[in-house]
């Protein structure tokens, strides 16, 4: 297994439960506690915040994993239902809400993929920018599909690591929590994933 040289730099931090991670997460804990408390009470503004997040960020994550809009919508809805039901029992300091929701979406999506027994590249949603002219839109769509196909060919864990860190803009600690791995393991997955994608995509660009 390829090891990232960064492992040698951070000798004192072997898992995501380390102090440094905890200090970073503390800033978000109070906000998450308050939000979940208000969701449990059915506070309209808190509910809007949850559904806005689900309708954009979580949906995009599910859609990338599943490659299917209908399944992504189902998974997103289920994640919202679980968040609302879990809200009264939310415990401070266990996880960040964003991380927790991503874990729920990831697990639900994995279940769906296992049931379907096919890869996420089977159905790539159309995603060209409507503001472009048809020719530009087609080129952009093709490029997007090439990237989607390349990411879809990665081993499952590498694909998930790339999606969380690059596409969901998650930091190392949160992505490691969602995948339930150490930061060193996450780095190994990311490094191998990005290396494979570079070989695949940059070689394709050079051929063009």
């Amino acid at each position, binding site marked *: 297994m390829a090891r990232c040289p960064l492992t040698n730099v951070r000798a004192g931090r072997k898992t995501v439960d380390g102090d440094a991670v905890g200090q970073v997460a503390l800033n978000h804990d109070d906000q998450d506690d308050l939000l979940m408390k208000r969701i449990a009470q*059915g506070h309209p503004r808190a509910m809007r915040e949850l559904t806005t997040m689900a309708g954009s960020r979580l949906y995009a994550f599910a859609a*990338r994993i599943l490659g299917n809009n209908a399944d992504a919508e189902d998974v997103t*809805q289920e994640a919202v239902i679980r968040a*609302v039901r879990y809200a009264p029992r939310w415990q401070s300091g266990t996880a960040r809400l964003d991380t927790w929701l991503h874990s729920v979406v990831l697990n639900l999506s994995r279940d769906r993929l296992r049931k379907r027994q096919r890869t996420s590249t089977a159905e790539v949603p159309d*995603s060209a920018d409507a503001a472009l002219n048809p020719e530009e839109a087609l080129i952009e769509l093709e490029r997007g599909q090439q990237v989607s196909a390349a990411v879809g060919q990665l081993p499952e864990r590498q694909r998930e690591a790339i999606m969380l860190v690059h596409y969901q803009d998650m930091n*190392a600690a949160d992505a490691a929590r969602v995948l339930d791995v150490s930061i060193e393991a996450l780095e190994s997955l*990311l490094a191998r994933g990005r*290396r494979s994608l570079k070989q695949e995509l*940059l070689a394709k660009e050079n051929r063009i």
Partner: protein
Amino acid sequence: MSPSTQPIDLAQFKAVAETYGSDINRWPSEVQVSARLLASRPGGASILQAEADFDAVLDQWTMPLPSPPFRQQIAATAANSVRRSWGTTRYWWAAIGLAAALSGAVTGTAGTAMFVMPQHVAGDTIFGDFDDEGDN
């Protein structure tokens, strides 16, 4: 420099950049201070630019926003879940109230029975005290 920050050299900077990409905010928090310093120098800047170019390639895979009806549907689902949750809570409070009432009734009955019991003497029946009659 705070205790949670660790200095890295250019080789380590390159390794981290190739792992996490060009956005230093995604990097492990303890190397970010050192990384920003290196990124401001020519060697680090060129490494970061190469990763930014690759990030731009990855960003070509965009996702469309879900349709407005779906967003409304999520909002409705969330609201229904809260109502169901409150309905369940009310059900449990009702059940607890009923249980308390029943246990009160049982306690009252048992208490009354215990209060009467000491006056009861062996041999007493509702038809009279057979032992007393026998003794006489």
